[in-house]
């Protein structure tokens, strides 16, 4: 095992331990409600960056995958009373199938056409769910949480821990991709797909793999949201805001390294949570808008690019 791997897994273990201890010791539930949302955005931003960052295929359909995850959980809860981990696993499977479908789109579409197709995918799935009365249809559905599992004393704390586990899983996968032949292949096809194909890079296989992994993680992040809200309606679950926020997080953080989307999600997610309970008016939308403009103009390669411009040596490291 390399030194960087040891450092990563130690950091991940410490992070999970800190989350677990906080869940067991803190009584105030607000940090868990707010923290859950930030962790959820970390998973979404990291998952998005597998396809959007590494492969350069900009997916505007994050909300389609997220919503599919939410409604998979709703269906499993209503039909079988399935436990949370089963909901997440099945949501990941559904997300990977959707990802496979999106991967097929890349056979014929690139650039803006691919992005538009992903928006269409979101609309198709949302319309389907809207007309699926079993899961509440357009009217929405209220859900009852099952009893909380030990050692947690509240369901939200348990969801917070589960989402932290998903963060570690998604970051580990993204980090592996970045450091392996997959990441190098995706980088090659991002720069020039035809040239990559000609030099023996299996572009189709790589794109399919990126789509499937990204889709699985995006949907898995959505599954616990059903129990977090204990309510689901298509307009909330398939809200375009998820796509826009996740895109902004990945761009603000930078997509050149797996840590970029993590930093972007922490920065933007925390800002959103803080603004929601401080400024709490139209001004918070303005502040986020200004932040985006400043990053696009001042740091087009995101926080990662900004750090690298100050410390040129970091660029050489993996």
């Amino acid at each position, binding site marked *: 095992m390399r030194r960087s791997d040891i450092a990563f897994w130690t950091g991940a273990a410490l992070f999970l331990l800190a989350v677990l201890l906080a869940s067991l010791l803190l009584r105030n539930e607000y940090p868990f409600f707010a923290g859950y949302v930030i962790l959820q955005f970390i998973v979404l931003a990291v998952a998005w960056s597998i396809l959007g960052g590494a492969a350069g295929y900009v997916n505007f359909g994050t909300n389609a995958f997220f919503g599919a995850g939410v409604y998979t959980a709703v269906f499993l809860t209503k039909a079988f009373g399935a436990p949370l981990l089963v909901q997440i696993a099945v949501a990941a499977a559904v997300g990977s199938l959707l990802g496979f479908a999106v991967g097929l789109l890349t056979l014929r579409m690139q650039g803006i056409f691919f992005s538009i197709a992903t928006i269409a995918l979101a609309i198709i799935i949302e319309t389907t769910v809207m007309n699926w009365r079993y899961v509440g249809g357009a009217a929405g559905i209220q859900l009852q949480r099952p009893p909380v599992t030990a050692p947690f004393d509240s369901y939200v704390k348990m969801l917070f821990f589960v989402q932290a586990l998903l963060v570690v899983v998604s970051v580990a996968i993204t980090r592996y991709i970045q450091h392996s032949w997959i990441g190098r292949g995706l980088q090659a096809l991002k720069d020039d797909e035809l040239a990559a194909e000609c030099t023996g890079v299996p572009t189709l296989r790589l794109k399919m793999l990126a789509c499937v992994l990204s889709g699985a993680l995006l949907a898995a992040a959505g599954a616990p949201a059903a129990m977090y809200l204990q309510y689901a309606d298509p307009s*909330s679950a398939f809200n375009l805001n998820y796509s826009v926020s996740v895109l902004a997080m990945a761009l603000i953080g930078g997509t050149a390294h797996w840590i970029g989307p993590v930093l972007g999600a922490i920065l933007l997610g925390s800002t959103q949570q803080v603004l929601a309970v401080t400024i709490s*008016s139209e001004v918070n939308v303005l502040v986020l808008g200004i932040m985006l403009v400043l990053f696009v103009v001042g740091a087009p390669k995101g926080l990662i690019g900004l750090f690298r411009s100050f410390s040129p040596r970091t660029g050489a490291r993996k």
Partner: protein
Amino acid sequence: MDRRTLLGGAMAVAALGMTSASRADEPPIRIGMSMPQTGGLAAGGKASLLGIEIWRDDVNARGGLLGRKVELVVYDDKSSASETPAIYAKLLDVDKVDLLFAPYATVPTAPIMPLVKQRGMLLMGNFSFQVNSKIHHDMWFNNAPWGPADAWARGFLGLGQKAGGKTVAMLSADQEFAQNLITTARDVAKKMDLSVVFDQTYPPSTAEFSSIIRALNAAKPDIVYVASYPPDSAAILRAVNEIGVGDNVKIFGGAMVGLQFAGVMENLGSLLNGVVNYNSWLPEPSMYFDGTKAFFETYSKRAVEAKVDPLGYYLPPYGFAMGQLIEQAVTATKSLDQKTLAKYLREHVHKTIVGSIEFAEDGEWKETATLEAQFRGVKDKNLDQFRSSGKQVILFPERLKTGELITPFEAARN
């Protein structure tokens, strides 16, 4: 006197002293809520909040509650269900508010119901629809005139049946509120032996309704029940104006959201004539109760500064009434204990500026006060005409009625 007695006496004296000293500068009673101030529900949310703020200023001018000032802790939920759980957790765990008001509308309210039930908190609802039907929270009091779930559809379809209607056409938006209403309406139509000859749901983004209206006309219904949202309500009425609905239609409307808002009403003008639609308050003689006139005088002035609906009939008086309900409960029980307040609210009839309110077991109003009113004599581009009575004649419920239905719809349009 032993040391323990002396110490106990000293503590009691100190506690008494503290109590009397703190009367003057006791902390305010804090009422927490989220309110849509951005997003699709913002227009309603801001107007509703102004109504609550007018009550807060009014009660504070009268010395507050239990001698303490009332303070509102309000956050923007961006009209989204995903924002409210964290906001209400903060209100409870960080801000430690004394009382909770729900946000305007069903979607932002639904996710907080389990939380408030789990924490044993009283929650004053703000125009949600049947949000407690599955949660069964015994400290939920919905401040909305809906009443029993089927009362809304029963009121409108009853008017149609009384006018000789036997067949119904239903047209609804594929969105939460409209779908909840139309589902109930289908059941009510069945119970009333009305035959549903047309039942169409349209996507929320639909902007052009002429083909749908033509298909509806082909079914030759006697009653047309529409559950729509503001942009589609306007588009449907424009399509009806161009194509017409035929002399067979005795009554048209029912649940069209948007026709309660000043901007939409002013824009549509004479196209509104003949439509029978729901509302929560109207400037008709039967709707003035103790304090209603004074409220609207204050609201009209403050609405201009706050840049919200200048008429404010739909939500603001209910925002004020929500404060009145809490004020009456706190004053009568001299307590902020959630269970005590809930018991009082459940067991008494409350006089407010929107009338007398009595709550049923499920926290909804015992009797519906959802008005079905017919637009009459409306002229184009004149907002002030809606301030006078006679422009929206109340047909239902019976106790608030101010006129009779003009039928058929085509005759009422002219």
